[in-house]
């Protein structure tokens, strides 16, 4: 940008605005947006995988915190990324709003009058009239109007020329496209501000009702009212999974099916649905997506007096594609407190390198490998703990054991018995409400339509003039193409338009065929 900013403050502001809304700035900002997006695909992102981010920072103690401070683990909500897209959209508003006005006026104003020397224009032609100028002009104007051109003719008392223009929809399409982008961004913002999203693990046979406390994780936008989320509920009646058993991609998932019964609100009748991946359940504007699954071993613990202190199906988290799963049991109401750290292996194998692990995700040969602990679980300190991790700082190990379904382990120090009686499956659901989704889709569709119009419609003008030259009357036809994608085809397209006019003249019987063609 070579021009220097003027010194006065209003002049300066105007200069800044002009720079911001110039095409070159839009171009540079688009580039910046592309470049700014890259780090998010290189570094782990907190919104996608917070554990990876933590590991990354632990592994590189110098660079990790610096990158973190600079927002590299939350690229898409970082100040610099936001700055780029906000500037781009400011530029877009500044660029498009005035163009809407200009275009609106252009669509309502008459096409520009006939240039003086029509014969100088590329592709111009001449035809001999067989009727009066008035009739010729009337016929041309009528035909063009019928073909949806904007037409003016003049002079008023005895018309000798027609000016017509077509292809305004090109600019309309372009504006629709750019304005739609603004609406898409707004719709995304609406979704972010008013929507909510939560994750929950539900065991086979168990239920869930839609209140924030029942979620394992829940997040809403700034204006989301957590008390106001719809009161639906559902039960996971049965969960079926199927894995590839062939050699190719052995163990890859092939089907997940969740048989659910649900109620729109506590008083509504029960309805049933099969929910699958790609087949979410829609309730009260929210959608319930099946996103994962795993095993929940049935574990019973009795204390030294034989009293049952724990009896439940405990969801274990899968650690690999073969569903080697980990989980813990914490028993608060026994003295001392007991804790169990365990691995659930659907198809158990044991080797020296990998230790106990699973070789297939299906439950062909399930086993539970565990270590039992006693002491203080550390839950009274008030410090939040993950239900999937045992804090063993103040505990001592009792022993290790492996169990098959239906077997028990008498703890060696006599503090109780652990029974592994089988397993259930669990499914995890993402439940989301995004009020901007449909709006975004509508405007994205409009954007594509506008874009296509903008790229494929040609803006063009044609002129027809009846002139007297050397005592002979001729009809001159000419036209021009304005900005279009297909420059080198334009001459051909223009010829088509002129052919159309010529034909209209012949059909109306006011002119004779081609007699002259210039290039």
């Amino acid at each position, binding site marked *: 940008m070579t021009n220097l900013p003027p010194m006065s403050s209003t002049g300066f502001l105007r200069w800044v605005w002009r720079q911001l809304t110039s095409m070159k700035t839009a171009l540079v900002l688009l*580039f910046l947006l*592309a470049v700014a997006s890259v780090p998010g695909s290189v570094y782990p992102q907190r919104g996608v995988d917070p554990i990876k981010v933590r590991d990354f920072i632990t592994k590189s103690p110098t660079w990790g915190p610096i990158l973190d401070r600079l927002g590299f683990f939350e690229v898409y909500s970082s100040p610099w990324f936001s700055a780029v897209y906000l500037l781009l959209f400011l530029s877009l508003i500044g660029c498009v709003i005035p163009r809407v006005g200009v275009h609106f006026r252009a669509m309502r104003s008459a096409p520009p009058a006939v240039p003086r020397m029509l014969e100088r224009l590329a592709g111009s032609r001449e035809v001999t009239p067989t009727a009066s100028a008035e009739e010729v002009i009337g016929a041309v104007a009528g035909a063009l109007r019928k073909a949806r051109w904007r037409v003016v003719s003049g002079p008023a008392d005895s018309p000798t020329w027609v000016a017509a223009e077509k292809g305004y929809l090109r600019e309309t399409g372009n504006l629709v496209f750019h304005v739609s982008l603004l609406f898409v961004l707004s719709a995304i913002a609406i979704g972010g501000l008013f929507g909510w999203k939560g994750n929950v693990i539900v065991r086979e046979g168990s239920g869930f009702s839609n209140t924030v406390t029942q979620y394992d994780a829940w997040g809403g936008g700034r204006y989301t009212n957590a008390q106001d989320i719809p009161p639906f509920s559902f039960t996971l009646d049965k969960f079926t999974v199927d894995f*590839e058993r062939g050699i*190719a*991609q052995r163990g890859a998932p092939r089907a997940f099916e969740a048989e659910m019964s649900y109620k729109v609100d506590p008083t509504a009748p029960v309805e049933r649905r099969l929910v699958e991946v*790609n087949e979410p359940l829609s309730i009260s504007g929210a959608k319930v997506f099946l996103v994962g699954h795993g095993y929940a071993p049935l574990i019973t613990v009795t204390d030294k007096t034989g009293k049952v202190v724990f009896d439940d199906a405990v969801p274990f988290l899968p650690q690999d594609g073969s569903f080697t799963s980990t989980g813990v049991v914490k028993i608060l109401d026994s003295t001392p407190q007991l804790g169990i750290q365990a691995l659930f292996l659907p198809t158990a194998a044991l080797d020296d390198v990998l230790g106990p692990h699973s070789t297939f995700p299906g439950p062909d040969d399930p086993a539970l490998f565990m270590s039992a602990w006693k002491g203080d679980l550390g839950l009274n300190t008030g410090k939040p703990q993950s239900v999937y991790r045992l804090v063993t700082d103040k505990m001592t190990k009792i022993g290790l054991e492996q169990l098959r379904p239906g077997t028990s382990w008498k703890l060696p120090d006599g503090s109780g018995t652990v029974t592994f009686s089988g397993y259930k499956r669990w499914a995890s659901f993402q439940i989301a409400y995004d009020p901007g989704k449909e709006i975004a889709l509508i405007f*994205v569709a409009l954007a594509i339509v506008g874009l296509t119009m903008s790229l494929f419609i040609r803006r063009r003008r044609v002129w027809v003039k009846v002139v007297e030259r050397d005592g002979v009357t001729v009809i001159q036809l000419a036209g021009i193409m304005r900005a279009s994608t297909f420059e080198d085809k334009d001459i051909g397209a223009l010829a088509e338009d002129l052919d159309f006019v010529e034909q209209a003249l012949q059909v109306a019987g006011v002119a004779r065929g081609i007699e002259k063609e210039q*290039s």
Partner: protein
Amino acid sequence: MSPESLARMSNVMVYSSMLVLTFAMFAFAASFAGGRRRVNSAAVESTRNAGGTAVITKAVVVTDDPGRRASNIGISLTWLAFVLLLVGVVLRGVWAGRAPWGNMYEFSITAALGVLAVFLIANTRTDLRWLGIFIVIPVLLTLGVAVTVLYTEAAQLVPALKSYWLVIHVFAAIICSGAFTLAAATAGLSLVRDRAERKAGSDVELTGALVSRIPSAERLRSLTNKTLAFAFPLWTFTVVAGAIWAENAWGRYWGWDPKETWAFITWVIYAAYLHARSTAGWRGNKASLIALAGWIAFLMNYFGVNFLANSLHSYAGVGN
């Protein structure tokens, strides 16, 4: 036919197609090296009609080009290779019992088919024989990588990929891969040709040089332009279809997953290209460079991201 023989037939077809493409490559190379484009200066025919006013002018361009036969053979061979590959891809789909783009191997052979299709169809509308070699070589490389590194036995899809949106999304992406590749070829050549034109000082001086075998930089840019004008709305649609699919499968339409991120980067770069066309000072080589950058971002998405483990979209199926 038994599944095994279907699989074998599919592989035989892919290999045959590669063989034929190799011959096509030699034919295109021969056409390139073999003859120089000799354009006799336009002979002009004029006729005067009885009225004495009208002049019909007709420029007759006489092209005498020994390399032309070779390039025609190249095109015929490319059509043959296309048909063989088409049969290979279809058989693969029949074998798997679904659309043939469930893993990287299938995606690669189908994308190669897409590139050939876009090239051959475009060639019926405007003469692109000179471009043949620049299309056939990348297609051969893609197929080579596919059959050696990426080959996987057909297997069913993981549940997230079972969606008709996938079929639409990937189909559109494959057409885009063809168009983007075509545009990258013309954009790259326009840079080469532009340099030669600048060095020579004029078009005429170029006869004899290898670059004289390709059209003028201006025409190459115009071809790039047209191809991308077709591809950009389609790519927009592809990204949207992907977002709809993601919404159905994972409950969010956009999550800045690496694959989504690179689709977005590709989109933004091509949007920048479309702006560059109408920005003073950016129309020429700069616009061509942007078109190339867009293609690289697209490739990044296609090859790079499938191997990044942390993408939900990692469905390469390689290494099993």
